């Protein structure tokens, strides 16, 4: 079980973070190709989001009525779009935050608990990137602390 790489895409479709954890798992691409990959994935994700219709929940009178008897209006879950892409040798898991930032995790096909790893990566992003006064939103991530914590966490998983 190996985690190969992590890519973070900002809400405009730009590549803001690209990191390989395991040599030999995936072939190296040129920087330009990674930018194209990020942009293309962003576009495909946007289209698949439109493909998936939003479920309209009927307000059931028993469960969702407020204290005054008025029905509580609930916002339906936003359509999720493309989440997993699997090939013979790797699996690409996508996680979209509520603000539209995308985390793409490349793992081998047998990797378990990807959502747990993803949750931890998101947690580290919100700690060491979003709480850093020197980080400018939507710009490439250059935070030593984030790099350090991320590599030690992924190394732990890969050495299990």
């Amino acid at each position: 079980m190996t985690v190969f790489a992590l890519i973070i895409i900002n809400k405009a479709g730009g590549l803001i973070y690209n990191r390989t954890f395991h040599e030999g798992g995936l072939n190296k691409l040129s920087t330009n190709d990674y930018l194209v990959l990020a942009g293309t994935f962003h576009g495909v994700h946007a289209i698949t989001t439109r493909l998936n219709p939003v479920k309209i929940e009927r307000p059931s009178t028993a469960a969702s009525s407020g204290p005054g008897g008025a029905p509580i209006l609930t916002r339906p879950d936003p359509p999720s779009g493309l989440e997993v892409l699997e090939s013979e040798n790797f699996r690409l898991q996508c996680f979209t935050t509520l603000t539209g930032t995308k985390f793409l995790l490349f793992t081998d096909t047998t990797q378990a608990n990807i959502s747990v790893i993803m949750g931890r990566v998101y947690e580290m992003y919100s700690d060491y990137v979003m709480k850093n006064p020197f980080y400018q939103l939507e710009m490439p991530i250059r935070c030593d602390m984030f790099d350090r914590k991320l590599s030690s966490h992924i190394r732990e998983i890969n050495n299990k």
Partner: protein
Amino acid sequence: MAHMGTAGKPGGKESGGGLRYPTNGKTIYHRPLNRSRTSELSQASFAYLFSEMVAYAQKRVTGIQDLEKRLNVQGHPIGLKLLDLLLIREPARTQTRPLNIIALLHFIKGNVWQHLFGRQANEVQRSSNAETPDEYMIIDNEPVVNAYISVPREMSQLNCAAFVAGIVEGVCDGAAFPARVTAHTVGGKEDGEMWPGKTVFLVKFQPEVLEREALLGKG
């Protein structure tokens, strides 16, 4: 005017005017505002607040020195007030302010750090250089304020714990030990990669402080 007159009456009847103290002698200054068991605050909300403070200090500065000075100035009044607050919470016997350098530095290492960060500072040292006997060092292996901060490479001399240095400076000034306090990153050099954020707070006392200390030592 009428209601002011009536408001003054009860106080005058009981104690002849002036402030009234609770019978057990504990005023509101003796207890923390936050009543929970550990009286801790959320580190995340502090991190966001501090991040904005650094961003605010960064506006219209000319250089890193200037930025550190601004952070220092933000911390200074906190230190001044903290000295009074922490002393009044001490038991009545030890309520006097520290009277020599060692007592002052131990007060900072122990009480001030415990109150601010929930633990003591790691070390207090005197400068080993014989030419600078006025310099003392307070060492923190992982400053809480820097927990989530990565300083960009082009600003590598900056240490945002300059804010804490300002607090320490305020405490020293308030206790009548005027000093200049600066924060320096030393991690990743002498101790390997063990404490990458290790910070030294260099306390440089004014000459008159050492002069007084020497006179007191003789007497």
